[in-house]
């Protein structure tokens, strides 16, 4: 079993300058914030089922960036159709990483479909993702990190984690501020690069 917060910290350690992260609501947002609250993170606090589609729009708009959507199994299940949409567009710079604790953690830990019959990596592969990988144990983590940060997209990684509830690390909640911060960072980056 993977420890989710350590795993996300490991994947985002020394993150490349061109990496843009969108986090799905609930624990993935806390995990991403805990790994480093930087301007290139867009934290979702709602819009359940929309994280992957939002990543697609951003990846198409910014082919120079690497876009990584980090979300939970419940959020991904609500947007399952978007996996077909992502695969059909197939942007090379897009990765989705699901923190799969097989539970709806925010609402009392009710069992989700992924602990029963649904294999999200197999769904992504069947939709047409270029590559998928699932990490069950700590030694599998390096391969998933390589997949989601470097391999040609669209790629899809799954971290099978425990369902312990961790301390909540709460980043900015005001969506206007999150959007402004993120867009300003992108603009500054673009201006810096063109100098």
């Amino acid at each position, binding site marked *: 079993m993977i420890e989710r917060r350590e795993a996300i910290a490991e994947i985002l350690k020394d993150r490349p300058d061109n990496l843009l992260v*969108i986090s799905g609501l609930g624990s993935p947002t806390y995990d991403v914030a805990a790994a480093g609250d930087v301007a290139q993170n*867009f934290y*979702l*606090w*709602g*819009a*359940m*089922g*929309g*994280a992957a*589609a*939002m*990543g*697609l*729009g*951003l*990846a*198409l*708009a*910014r082919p120079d*960036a690497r876009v990584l959507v980090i979300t939970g199994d419940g959020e991904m299940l609500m*947007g399952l*159709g*978007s996996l*077909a*949409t992502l695969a*059909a*567009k197939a942007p090379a710079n897009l990765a989705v990483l699901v923190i799969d604790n097989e539970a709806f953690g925010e609402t009392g830990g009710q069992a989700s479909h992924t602990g029963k019959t649904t294999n999200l990596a197999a769904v992504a592969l069947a939709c047409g993702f270029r590559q998928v990988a699932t990490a069950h144990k700590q030694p599998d983590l390096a391969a998933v990190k390589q997949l989601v940060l470097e391999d040609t997209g669209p790629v899809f990684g799954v971290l099978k984690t425990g369902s312990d509830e961790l301390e909540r690390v709460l980043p900015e909640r005001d*969506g*206007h501020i*999150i*959007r402004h911060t*993120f*867009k300003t960072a*992108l*603009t500054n980056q673009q201006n810096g690069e063109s100098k």
Partner: protein
Amino acid sequence: MRADPFAFAADDWRANIFAALKEQQVQQMAYVPDAGHASLINACHGDDGINCTVLTTEEEGVALLAGAELGGQRGVMLMQSSGVGNCVNMFSLLKSCGFPFVTLVTMRGEWGEFNPWQMPMGQATEETFRRSGFVVYRADTGEDAAAMTGSAMRLAYDSNCPVAVLLSQRLIGAKDF
């Protein structure tokens, strides 16, 4: 010479909507297909400057175009009225973050509708948009449709609000079976 498969028929008012989208520098178009949008969808696919994404459900388009805007691109979503209800919770993304957003909606369930299943969402479309914080335009002529599209883009991207342009069933023509 073969006819251009992306060309509009001579009397197709959608050509003017397309011109308005180009003038407003739309770079992404997301859609769930509708016969009433068919020639406009074709024209967008034929344009190298517009990246088109076909969706499995309309709410994906809301999130997709928010992502596009984060990356600095303007977008538009094409859908029919039956898809509006699919989007309701995703509209909260627009309001919560102040995202600009424009959608052009072909109306069913209002003018000479043949299919009773189109009535509930067709009749609820305008109210659903208003309650979700949208500015709503309704076009009954082709001339209005193009002018309202241009205005919707300006309202959305200059004044940061979501705007829906309803293309009335009277304008599109009731579907024959």
